[in-house]
């Protein structure tokens, strides 16, 4: 890939990000490629040394606050003209409930997901507690009711504790998974505002 191809590809990848930032980024990488070429590298080598274009774009996207992305998408980076402000105010009875509804749905999904995690945690905890209680309880049971009851209680206790231990690992994996999911959903929401412009 030569320098111009790199610049064009980067430009393409950065569409939707505020235009000032795009310019700055392109200028920066142009300078860096020129520096490496002055230092004796071939154009291809210098471009390759910059790393992957996707990584560069992702890093910039991750560091641009969502509010900037949204504002830039809505206004195209320019201050709002008066008639749009009037329209926004007049349209408030319509778009505020719609926005609130969208937000509530997202929040509900989020709460449901975490509730399931909490429920799983509660089951694990309950199994562990009752399992341990059964194991401890088998001693007085033997004294009062005999060996058969003791064995039943001990066995049940061991089964419960065993399942609890297994569930604990499931729970841990789920928590990590859900946390990662939330993060990628957030990045996804960000990229909606960026990609639409690019399309």
């Amino acid at each position, binding site marked *: 890939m030569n320098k111009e191809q790199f610049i064009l590809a980067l430009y393409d990848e950065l569409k939707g990000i505020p235009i000032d930032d795009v310019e700055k980024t392109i200028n*920066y990488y142009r300078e*860096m490629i020129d*520096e490496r070429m002055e*230092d004796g590298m071939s154009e291809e080598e210098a471009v390759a040394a910059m790393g992957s274009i996707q*990584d560069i774009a992702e*890093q*910039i996207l991750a*560091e641009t606050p969502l509010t900037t992305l949204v504002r830039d998408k809505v206004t195209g980076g320019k201050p709002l003209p008066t008639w749009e402000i009037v329209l926004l105010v007049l349209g408030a009875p319509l778009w505020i409930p719609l926005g609130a509804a969208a937000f509530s749905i997202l929040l509900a999904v989020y709460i449901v997901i975490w509730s399931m995690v909490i429920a799983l945690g509660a089951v694990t905890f309950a199994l562990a507690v009752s399992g341990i209680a059964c194991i401890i309880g088998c001693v007085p049971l033997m004294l009062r009711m005999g060996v058969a009851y003791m064995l039943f209680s001990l066995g049940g206790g061991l089964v419960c504790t065993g399942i609890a231990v297994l569930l604990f690992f499931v729970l841990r994996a789920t928590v990590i998974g859900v946390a990662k999911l939330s993060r990628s959903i957030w990045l996804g929401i960000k990229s909606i505002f960026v990609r639409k412009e690019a399309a």
Partner: protein
Amino acid sequence: MDIQLKRGLLDVCVLAAIKNEDSYGYQIVKDIKPYVEISESTLYPILRRLEAAECLSVRSVEHNGRLRKYYHILPPGRERIDQFTTDWREIESIHEFITRGGERHE
């Protein structure tokens, strides 16, 4: 090295690279490279962050028929370096405690 730690160190390294005289991107990378792994792509977000925090300012200078950006350290940037050296003294005493294996100093 731990990513968070490296990130914090790199910010200070970049400031140190322009502490005595203004420098440009590629030179900064070359100056830091012998000590910490850094590339142009890693440097870029750091410069943006430091500029936003008003730790440095940027000016363009013509060089070989193109523009080269020079970075100039500002007072908050110098404060960051000073803060780092103070923090480091504290870290050194913690390091000593750790390598002693947490034994009490007699």
